[in-house]
Structure formats: structure tokens, C-alpha cells
């Protein structure tokens, strides 16, 4: 009960943040020169002023900024994300279409980064200054410094073009009509390189953090206590240190999850992954305001939810956290 109330409280306090994001982005986007009508007309080659006016009227761009904002907010209040005139489709359906691939990519990348990062960090910390530690530290240092898009390009050269192991791009092989496990396998093969490109940076980050966190925890008094009980080193690591060391990782992971959305733009572009990132970039380029705002809105909501999830995980991990 207390928990439910807490959740409600958190969600309510998140509302001003989300509203603020809407306002800020609305203003910023309207600060940007050029509008959707001119882009659409530009792509069409030429258009009469009447045609452009018609477009602007259709897009609601002829109204005052305040009116546009009110309209937008009232639509949002009715859970109506608006209409993307440029794409001739409902914003919500555009986003929903992309949500699946994006979630798949992000969850895979994030999950891999967190899980592998934790394992590698643990392995490195337990064998501190051994060859294992040195190799893991070296790899994570290099991975931490590698631009994801460049890594993606290099992987295409090596694994798709050179070795022919993995498909170059896309979500699945179009037109194969694969079903069931064949389709899963197909998607998985497409997923490997984008997920790795996206994950590697974060993997390195978590490995480094985890290593530091484990080392810090192993110096704590309770570890000495456990030793004084006669506990084995392995059990001390798994039974005591691990969970304590995870706490800072959970916090950082929550903060980073938001950045993953941004980071996916570049990776999605390289691999032609049909996700939110490329949608956002295209929307920005073509001043598709409703769509862009909706994406900002979505990601803000997502981050709020992630932060909430992080808190919940934290509470589960750490009894000291009181709701």
C-alpha cells in the first residue's frame, strides 16, 4: 500500500518535469528557422504561396505560438499525440511502429552492457592486477573511447563485407516470409552488430564502475567481519560484496538509460535500424514538430519510468532505502 502510494507520488511529481520538457522543446523547436511546409514544398520542387499557405494552415502553423501551444497541450492532455502531416500518419502510430525495434535494440544493448559489464567488472576486481584484470581493463578503456558509429562501420566492413557472416542492415530479411524461430533467428542476426555498437561503450562503463565498486566494497569492514566468521573468499564475493557493489551501478545505469535513446540515433542510422532514433533525426531535419515533440515526450516518460524502476530496484536491493 505504502509502495503504491509512493509510486503515485513519484508519478505525480514527474508530471511537472514532463510538462517542462514539453514546453522547453516546444519553444526550442519553434526557435529553429524554417518550417515543415517549406520542407515539404522544397522536396516537391516548387509550390505556390497558396499551396504553402494551405499547408501551413493544415499544419496549424498559421496560428499564434500561444494558440499552437495550447492546442498541443490540450491534445496531449487527451493522450492525443497529434498528426504528422509530413508522414500523413498519426504520430502515435508512427512511434508505435518504431517502438518494437527500438525497444529490442535498446533492451538488448542495455541488458548486454549491464550484465556483461557487471560480470567483467567483477572478474577484473577479483583478480586485481592479474592478467585477467589487465585485459579487461584494457578492453574497457579502448571500448570506452571508441565512437559507436565508427565501430559499427568497421564491423560492417569486417563481418558483413569481409566475412559475410552477418547482414549489413535492417531489422529482418524482407520478403522471406520467415515465421517462428526462423524469423527470430533472422532478427537476431540483424540485431547483433547494432546492439554491439550501441552496447560496447556502456559495457565498458559498467565494467569500469563495477570493478571500482567491488574494490571499494572489498575494503569495507563487513568484509573483514565475514572473513572473521571464517567465510570463504568466493562466498564473501557472491554473498556480500556483489550486492553492495551493485548499488552504484543501478544508479548510474538509470541515468545512462536516457542517453541510450540519443546514442541510438547514430547507430540506427548506420545500420538502417527502423527505430525511434532515426525517426527523431528525420523529424528534426524536416521540422515535423508534432512528431519530434512526441518523441521528446515519449523519451521523457521513458526516462521517468526508468528512474522509477531504478528506485524500485534500489529499494529491493537496499533495505536502508525507505519509501
Amino acid at each position: 500500500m505504502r509502495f503504491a502510494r509512493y509510486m503515485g507520488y513519484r508519478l505525480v511529481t514527474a508530471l511537472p518535469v514532463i510538462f517542462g520538457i514539453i514546453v522547453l522543446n516546444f519553444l526550442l523547436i519553434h526557435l529553429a528557422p524554417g518550417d515543415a511546409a517549406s520542407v515539404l514544398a522544397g522536396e516537391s520542387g516548387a509550390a505556390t504561396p497558396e499551396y504553402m499557405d494551405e499547408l501551413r494552415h493544415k499544419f496549424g502553423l498559421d496560428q499564434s505560438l500561444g494558440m499552437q501551444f495550447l492546442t498541443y497541450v490540450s491534445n496531449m492532455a487527451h493522450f492525443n499525440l497529434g498528426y504528422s502531416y509530413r508522414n500523413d500518419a498519426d504520430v502515435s502510430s508512427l512511434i508505435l511502429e518504431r517502438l518494437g525495434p527500438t525497444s529490442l535494440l535498446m533492451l538488448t544493448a542495455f541488458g548486454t552492457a549491464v550484465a556483461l559489464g557487471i560480470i567483467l567488472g567483477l572478474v577484473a576486481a577479483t583478480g586485481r592486477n592479474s592478467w585477467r584484470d589487465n585485459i579487461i581493463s584494457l578492453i574497457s578503456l579502448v571500448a570506452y573511447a571508441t565512437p559507436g558509429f565508427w565501430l559499427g562501420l568497421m564491423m560492417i566492413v569486417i563481418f558483413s563485407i569481409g566475412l559475410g557472416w552477418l547482414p549489413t542492415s535492417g531489422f529482418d530479411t524482407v520478403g522471406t516470409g520467415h515465421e517462428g524461430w526462423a524469423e527470430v533467428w533472422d532478427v537476431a542476426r540483424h540485431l547483433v552488430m547494432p546492439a554491439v555498437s550501441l552496447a560496447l561503450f556502456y559495457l565498458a562503463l559498467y565494467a569500469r564502475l563495477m570493478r571500482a565498486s567491488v574494490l571499494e566494497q572489498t575494503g569495507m569492514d563487513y568484509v573483514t567481519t565475514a572473513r572473521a566468521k571464517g567465510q570463504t573468499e568466493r562466498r564473501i564475493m557472491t554473498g556480500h560484496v556483489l550486492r553492495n557493489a551493485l548499488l552504484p551501478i543501478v544508479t548510474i545505469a538509470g541515468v545512462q538509460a536516457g542517453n541510450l535513446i540519443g546514442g541510438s540515433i547514430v547507430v540506427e542510422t548506420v545500420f538502417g535500424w527502423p527505430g525511434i532514433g532515426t525517426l527523431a533525426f528525420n523529424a528534426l531535419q524536416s521540422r515535423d514538430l508534432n512528431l519530434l515533440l512526441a518523441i521528446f515526450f515519449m523519451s521523457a516518460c521513458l526516462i521517468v519510468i526508468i528512474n522509477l524502476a531504478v528506485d524500485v530496484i534500489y529499494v529491493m536491493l537496499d533495505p536502508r532505502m525507505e519509501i
Partner: protein
Amino acid sequence: MSQTVLELEKLTIALPSGADRANAVSDIDLVLRAGKVTCLIGESGSGKSLVARSILGLLPRPHVRIGSGRILFEGQDLAVAPQDKMRAIRGAKIGMIFQEPMTALNPLHTIGRQLDEVLRIHTSLGKAARRARVLELIDSVHLPEPSRIIRSFPHQLSGGQRQRAMIAMALLLNPRLLIADEPTTALDVTTQAQILYLIRELQREHGTSVLFITHDFGVVADIADEVAVLQRGTLVERGTAGAVLGAPTHPYTKALIAAVPKLVPPAARPANTQPFIVEARDIAKTYGTRGLFGGRVTVALAGVTMELRRGETLGLVGESGSGKSTLARAITRLLPIDGGEILLGGADIAQLSRRQLRPVRKRVQMVFQDPYASLDPRRRIIDIIAEGPIIHGTPPAKAREEAQALLRLVGLDASAAKRFPHEFSGGQRQRIGIARALALHPDVLVADEPVSALDVSVQSQVLALLADIKARLHLSMLFVTHDLRVAVQVCDRIAVMKQGEVVEVAPTAEIFFNPQHSYTKALFAAVPGGTWQDRKAS
């Protein structure tokens, strides 16, 4: 003579190169006997804790290791025992408790689970049997509601309760030896007294041998059967408690014992009839601790009224959380208060703005507890001392000149001026802190636990300096301390605080001989060692 449980033979613990000395301890010989409490006493840096840890093989390897010597336990040399042998001994045959029970317990596991772990490691008992044993031990350390305690997490218990749980954990398997590394240092006096009593009680019950590490002679007087004194890695004196405390032979031991303030009030002085320099009226202060959901409010000061007369030293005494430090900081306006008046020389300063406050500041100066934290590590001593006068408009050159003079006044060499705080010892730093406070020629000195972070020998020097300066400069002083021994020595009057309120104020002699409030009585009763110095004297 009872049976020998553990024997240290010429134990030498080597420090890594680059440390201030080659060996943490050298050639220690020590015998621990069944049913006896052996106190290993020493000041900070004496190496006493490392001795304790070396027995269980818990030295911070690989930097610190046993250089030579033997640790004989049940016929084995623990100094060279393999890890699996050591694991079988730890927790089962030798238990250990630590200074800070909060960090020594895993914050994420329940108390029950942490106790249970010991049994799982060393026994093949079933779940129910283990639980029964855990509950039994919890009960034996007098923790209330054992079944609730085992479901609790460490942070849900008080400091004393946590230490009891630690003791229960250490004694689960009836070890032959219990190593207690400053187990009461982090606790309040009343709690300390209870824990000491508990250790004594359990130890007698089971005939356990106890190695008790401490820096406090009062504690030694309360608990020790035998005493070993460690001075910078060397065991300088050993013997029964009565012999060492009553008739120390080594000069170091003598000096240490002499430095312990006596729990005897100075002769009653004529009552101070000077006007009040500081009056605090109904000062209220609450802290809002913001929980994740809602929040709760801690009352730090619940309408405290207190007066300080010109030329007087008023002691503020209480346990942690009593509000004594909060009151000190409220009076110096370092903390904003929620209500009440602070009259300085009759004028209310409680409502002054930051700007209006600035000229007033120089009249009330503070000496802080932690000599390591109270000096800006990035500034030279001379600048630290001269900063106050410069702020208040003294030309820098003149301020520095005066600072040099102050250095001499607090007993430091002139060469100290150009150096940085980390180049000084704790006592020296506290002298610098005092010099900084004096630089502004204040009327009132507020000393917040000025000696509690210092070793006894240094403590007495700093107290002497404070007394000297106070007399010479006709200062009024508010002296905050948790240590009744110190308070009794220093103060003209003592105010006892509990939970944000002053429960009793009286001249020192009066409060010592005739405490009115039950809490005051409890505090005096709990002072470790009580009046052992007088017992010996009589």
C-alpha cells in the same frame, strides 16, 4: 594461573616501505588466558589494532604482513597456518568484534542472516536448529524481541543494539578467544557501560578469553584482568590490571595515566556574578530529514534556554543526539535557528542578516572538534590565522604579524607559519585552530569537543592551553563535550543536555556531588573507570 589460550611470541608486523616506520609492532610477547580479559592499550598509531587482526590473519595484505614471530593457538602457529585452517578457526574458535558495528555488519542482510551465516559455515545444523541457536544468542546479549531482531536490518537498530548483535555473532560457537577491537569507542558512555558489562558477563559465563583493544584507561579499569601497554609498536609494560593501573613502572604508562583527567571537581570557586555575555532564550531547531516519501522531523533543540556569564566556562554535556553541538553552532549563528533569541552582550543577534552579522562574528569564535577537517588543507598556517583580521579590515601585513605572535602564544614555532596543515599533528592543528579563533580577539570562545579526537596525552596539553589562554585573555567559554572527566576538570558550571533540552544546570561541584536529574546520575555512573584514580590514591 588459568590455562593459556593464545600466545604471541616475538610477533613483528611489517609495514610496507614508505610507511613512517618499518614495523607496526616489534617483538610482542603476550599471553592470553582462559577466563581473563587482557586489555591491549595504546594511543593512535601504536599498532594495537594490527596485533588484533594479525591473530585472525586479517591483516590488510599484501602491504601489511607478519614479519616474524609466532601466534600459538591450540598448538598451531597461526602466523603460518594455511587459509583453510584459518577459516576453520575464525568465527568458530576465535570470534571478533569491531569498533564500528554499523560498517562491520553487511547493511543489506538481516541480522538473523548474518548470524546464521556463521552456523552455516561451521556447523551442519539444520535450519530450525540454527534458528534456535541464533535466537538463543540474541537473547543472551539481552536484545529485546529476538524474533524481531533477527528480521531487522542493521540500520534499524541502535548503535548499542548493533554491537550486541555483533557480540552475539562472535559468541555463537562459544569461541575460546574473543577479540574486541575498540568495541565501545563509537558508543555513548551509557551504552558503553552496558556493553562492557555484557562482555564481562558473557566472558565469565563461558570462561572465554578476551583480547580487548582500547585507548581508554577508564575502560581498562572497568574490564581488564591483565593489561599490556603498547607504545609505537613496542610493548612497554605488562601486568595485572591492579599492578599496571595502580603502580605503573614504565614512564610512558605513568605519563599516560597522569594525563587522564580525574573525575574530581576542582575546589568550589566563588560564584561568578559577572553579567551574562551570552543568553540563549527558547532556542528551537528542527531538522527535516527528507525521506523519499513524505519526511520526518527531528527536534534538535526544543526551546533551550542557557546563559553564559562573562569570564565563565560553561560545559555543555550530553550524549550524541542530545543537541549540544547544535546549540553551540546556533549560538555562533553558524546554523539558522527556527525560533528564540540569542543575546550577545544584551543585543539579540538571532535575527541579524548575514551582512549585519559579520561585525558581530568576531566577538564569538569557535574551536572545532576535528583538527583534520577544521583547517583548509590548501592554505598556509599564517594565512589561516590571519584571515579573520584581514576580513575585518586589518591590513594584511599587520594581520600576519599578529598571527606570528599568536603562533607563539599557542606554543608553536614561528617556522610553522609557512607550512600547510597536513604537516602537523592533531594536537598542533588544534593549537592552530585556537590561534585562528583568538586572532579576532573574541569575547566568547565556543569550543565544540575540542579534545575528543586527540590522544589523552595531547588532550591534557590542549586543555591546559585553553585554560591558560582563557585566564590570560579573560574569555568566556562555552565548552561542549561528551566526556564528563574533561567537563569536570574544565568547567565552572555544567549544563546537561538530553534530547534537545537542558535537563540540569549547576556549578560543577554541585552537579558532581549532588546530581538532581536521573539522567545526570546515569551519566556520571557510566563514566568508564569511575574514580579508579582515587581508589588507588586512597
